[in-house]
């Protein structure tokens, strides 16, 4: 059989006929395999959900215990037989619990990467490349303008700004799952051991991370206007920083941690004073490197700049096509 027969695009998302499962479907299905806990990959309502134990814990924290029928944890590296296919989860390095889905059937292997990055991240297991025939890759930052600097350099800029402006509260816009915890862990690595203050929307997932063995140091939820926040670091969803919630912060210097911050027009549009280029996705060189390391001859490109990555693949003699998946990419653009 051809590797292409391992996966089909259906209205509700990718479908693997041999295993009879959907992968990251965006509508409720009977049996879903989910790569990681972000809302555009893991949605509530599936009758059965298979994912890493960490992803299941995150899904329960976000959607409650009744959002899914049955939960089936599958630790990374342990193959499981589903109908005519063998399925294995392999770390993707994107957020805690994130995994690539490796599907083997009929002597062929397909890998669905979900979202991934190659840069080191103290909060999750590193990406492991898997040789395969068909590689389904993301392309969030699939343009040659995206080359992410080391996160440690960006954290150093944040701490330098905090030292230079000690009267201002540094409020960093972060996504609640992954970016918040990674930034905290990177700050700890850089020696920042003060309490980090959190918007209420970030507290639950930080607790899950700590329960799953990722230490984050002293954290406090922001309540009212009483806490002394000058000279401190505050993390909040970007939408809260752009809105009324931010009024409680004393003389806030608005920062944002996102791969999009590489484009200064974007940073300026959002009223960001200190843009930090910290991304949980592969940048352009890492997308290229990863595609070559899989040895796959067929590449399907999902959400992001598919056109540019497909163009590059064609130049490498690879058979690449864009997969128009609905509802993707919202976590970075919110």
């Amino acid at each position: 059989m051809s590797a292409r027969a391992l996966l089909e695009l259906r209205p509700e998302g990718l479908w693997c006929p041999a295993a009879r499962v959907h992968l990251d479907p965006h509508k409720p299905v009977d049996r879903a395999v989910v790569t990681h806990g972000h809302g555009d990959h893991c949605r509530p309502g599936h009758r059965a959900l298979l994912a890493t134990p960490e992803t299941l814990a995150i899904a329960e924290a976000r959607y409650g215990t009744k959002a899914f029928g049955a939960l089936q944890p599958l630790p990374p590296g342990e193959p499981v037989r589903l109908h005519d296919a063998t399925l294995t989860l392999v770390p993707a390095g994107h957020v805690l619990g994130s995994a690539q889905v490796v599907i083997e059937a009929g002597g062929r292997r397909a890998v669905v990467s979900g979202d991934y990055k190659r840069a080191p991240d103290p909060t999750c297991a590193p990406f492991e490349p898997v040789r395969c025939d068909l590689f389904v890759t993301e392309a969030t930052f699939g343009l040659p303008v995206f080359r992410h600097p080391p996160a440690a350099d960006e954290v150093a800029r944040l701490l330098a700004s905090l030292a230079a402006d000690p009267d201002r509260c540094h409020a960093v816009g972060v996504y609640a799952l992954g970016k918040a915890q990674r930034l905290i862990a990177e700050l700890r690595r850089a020696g920042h051991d003060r309490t980090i203050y959190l918007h209420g929307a970030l507290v639950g997932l930080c607790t899950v991370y700590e329960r799953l063995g990722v230490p984050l140091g002293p954290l406090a939820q922001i309540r009212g206007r009483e806490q002394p926040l000058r000279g401190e670091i505050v993390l909040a969803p970007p939408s809260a920083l752009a809105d009324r919630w931010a009024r409680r912060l004393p003389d806030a210097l608005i920062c944002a941690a996102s791969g999009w911050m590489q484009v200064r027009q974007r940073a300026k549009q959002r009223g960001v004073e200190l843009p930090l280029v910290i991304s949980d996705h592969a940048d352009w060189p890492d997308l290229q490197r990863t595609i070559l390391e899989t040895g796959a001859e067929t590449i399907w490109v999902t959400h992001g700049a598919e056109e540019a990555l497909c163009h590059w693949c064609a130049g490498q003699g690879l058979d690449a096509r864009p997969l128009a998946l609905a509802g993707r990419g919202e976590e970075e653009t919110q």
Partner: protein
Amino acid sequence: MRRFAELLERLVFTPQRNGKLRLLEAHFAGTPDPDRGWALAALAGTLELPNLTPSLIRGLTEERTDPVLFRLSYDFVGDLAETVSLIWPAPETPPAPPPGLSETVEALAAATRSTRPAVLADLFDRLDPSARFAVIKLCTGGLRVGVSARLAKQALANRFGRPIERIEELWFALEPPYEDLFAWLEGGEEPEADLALSFRPMMLANPIEEHQFPDLDAADFAAETKWDGIRVQAVATPAGRRLYSRTGEDVGPAFPDVLEAMDWEGCVDGELLVVKDGETRPFSELQRRLGRKTVSARMLAELPAHVRAYDLLHDGAEDLRPLPYADRRARLAAWRTRWAPARLDVSEEVAFEGWDDLAAIRDASREAGEEGLMLKRRDSAYLAGRPVGPWWKWKRAPLTADCVLMYAQRGHGKRSSFYSDFTFGAWEEGTDGPSLAPVGKAYSGYTDEELVKLDRWVRANMTERYGPVRAVAPELVLEVAFDALQPSTRHRSGVAMRFPRIKRIRWDKPAAEAERLSTLRALAGLG
């Protein structure tokens, strides 16, 4: 180059004036010569580098990258300089260490037409993306970091404790990289300079309030019209001619007609206006001539520029600034008779009997191009800055119109979370019944408490979003004050307000009773 690139990056993202000043002060104090002088020149707009066209930069980049990927990246980023700085494929090992700002400036200045691409490519190979961006901005004109020449000089004055007036006076005699200027700022000798053609810091007036009049004797003051143009200083000596804005920026290149007519010697303080066939035209017509690098013959004919003199600061080489205002005006009249200048007349003194009489005069006339009155003490010397007492500006009572709030947008800085920018409209009769046509946008005039209420109202009455803009239900009436209403081809309504601000929120007034567009168009002199 690294430091300069960092400075530009921080300036771009720092909205507050004080924040920008702090960054500039730290840069000028902590950067050695000549790099800080080149930075000053770049920020103040005095750095002359061969102009590199976008097509040259684009061509150079396309040679090094896949043109399809370049096009897709440009589509995404939307800014050529930023796309090129990010996509440029630097070699694994740069050909040489990264150049400093002065080396960069010298390399670009020395490049000939034929060597420019190679010089630029070499710089790009040695620099990181943010420094590449800075290089492109240096040679394509306009850093666009929200720093004026005035702000850069203010930072120097703040950091080194020298008066900004003196920095401005010396400025036009000095050249990049300003090593003599920095030597003086740091305690050395003042640079020797021929100041004949330099900018003289202007004397500015304070607004006067009604309650201040009883304390002032009308006989001590001369009154004149406050013209609605741009305050300028015109200087001519045998060595050259200059036309400066209020902040000392050289606006001469945009007004070659004025420069050509300056075949006299002296320094005149006046108002730049468009005067056609003896008639003073509204500000909107002058606005069309501002900020142009080249002016077409058609524009010169259609919108002839003119200086209306208020004061004479130098008669030939003689400095008149210490003389009383009344004496300077007499010298101005004599000077005008002597030179009979073209494109220049004198703003006539407005005769009046007392304050009540003057108030009546002020409110009687609403000619185009007039903003109100100026009151100047007859015994006042010409002092730099805005001293309280000698000069007052007395703007005429504003016009008002009740308009309907249509769109709101969040503001910046302190107001970043508030809906504080308001677009409002007036009713227009259409075939489908009345609809609103936007007539202006205001960011000020309300109190902090009113802002909170407006913000709350906007959030509760949003109907649609267009990017950052929120449309609201057409239900809230704002009483808008403005100084003038002018015909405009840029606005669909056909009118543009000058200095609109929100005077009152008319919570009580039904929206249907707000202003008709036809009324406003008539006020603007449109049929």
